[in-house]
């Protein structure tokens, strides 16, 4: 009787552990925009996503994506990076341009909204807001200060699995945009290793 009870408890514990592990693995895979971390570019295309070559190899092979399963309302560009082993590890989203707004009021309002959403899902972020000094600190020079590198405005969110950054950038003195970067920590580490190998091989 005691042996049977012990066996039952052991089975329940094992099953619970297995479910927990499966849930953790599932959580590790889930990426934003209806994608999954580690997917190959072929698997992404099978979802109906259009991928077009994106110049630059800083993050391995990258593509601009369209027809994604999910995007947020004011997204203009999404760049997916697959490293050198064709596994999705980085997602960069850039918003449409917020034009004719040297104060950056509209882009900052949107930034605040997104900041709250991200904090709700990924926990409190670490803000890095520096709006410049002197001339650059004037509210109507906010976007100008960003465009010249005299100000910066971003928040980092760190979880066990992900590194996320929400930031505001500027195209010129009165046009700004926000961008959100999602990176899988595990896959980033794999990418860094493969990058070194790739660089060594190309020498």
């Amino acid at each position, binding site marked *: 009787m005691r042996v049977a009870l012990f066996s039952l408890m052991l089975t329940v514990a094992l099953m619970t552990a297995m479910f927990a592990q499966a849930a953790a693995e599932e959580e590790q895979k889930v990426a934003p925009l209806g994608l999954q971390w580690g997917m190959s570019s072929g698997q992404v295309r099978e979802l109906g996503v259009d991928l077009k070559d994106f110049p630059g190899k800083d993050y391995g092979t990258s593509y601009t994506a369209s027809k994604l399963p999910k995007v947020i*309302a004011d997204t203009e560009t*999404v760049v997916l990076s697959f490293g050198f082993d064709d596994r999705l590890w980085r997602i960069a989203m850039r918003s449409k341009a917020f*034009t004719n707004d040297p104060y950056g009021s509209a882009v900052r309002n949107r930034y605040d909204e997104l900041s709250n*959403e991200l904090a709700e*899902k990924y926990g409190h972020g670490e803000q890095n807001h520096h709006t410049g000094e002197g001339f650059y600190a004037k509210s109507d020079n906010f976007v100008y200060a960003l465009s010249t590198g005299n100000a910066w405005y971003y928040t980092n969110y760190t979880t066990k699995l992900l590194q996320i950054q929400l930031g505001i950038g500027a195209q010129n003195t009165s046009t700004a945009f926000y961008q959100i970067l999602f990176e899988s920590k595990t896959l980033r580490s794999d990418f860094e290793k493969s990058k070194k190998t790739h660089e060594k091989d190309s020498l």
Partner: protein
Amino acid sequence: MAKAATIVFVGLVFVLGICVSVLLLAHAAPSTEALDADLVQVRAQIKAADEEDLKYQGGIIKALVSVRREILRRSEAMLAQKRASFLRRIDLRYIVDGKAMAPASEERLTEIASDIDKANAALSKDLAGAARYSGGVIQAMSLMAVATDHLTVAQLSLAYFGAKYGMALPIPAQDGAPGTSAQPAPGVIVKDKDAF
């Protein structure tokens, strides 16, 4: 017979007179005097820009002055072209995107004139600011602000003359209001939280 010929002659002169009047009335506005007055104003601004340009050897302020001068020259060319078309009875019409360009309404002109006034006020303020310094980075920044203000005034003047005489400007239409650029979304739009 002579009486009939006289009647016909008088009739012909009368008809010819009506034709000439109609032709003149069709090209009555704007008058060459108005165009000449605007040309004098623009040429004075070009002269001022030329004189200012000589003050600088190089750098961003000189570049801004050059841009301003080029914009003023464009205004001058546009006005001179319109004036020449009147004198030579050329019917000058501009078609942009299949729409005939017509002189803007008084309301629109007042709106642009108000913008010019505001830009001039900003210019006066920045000029006064720049006069407070005799050198250094702050004066350089102030002079840059002045040059930018001059540029704004020149651009607005170009827009004003273009609107006043119904001349096309190869400048993309902008409503000046803050907003976002319109491009199709790269996927299915969902709520923010559902996308993350």
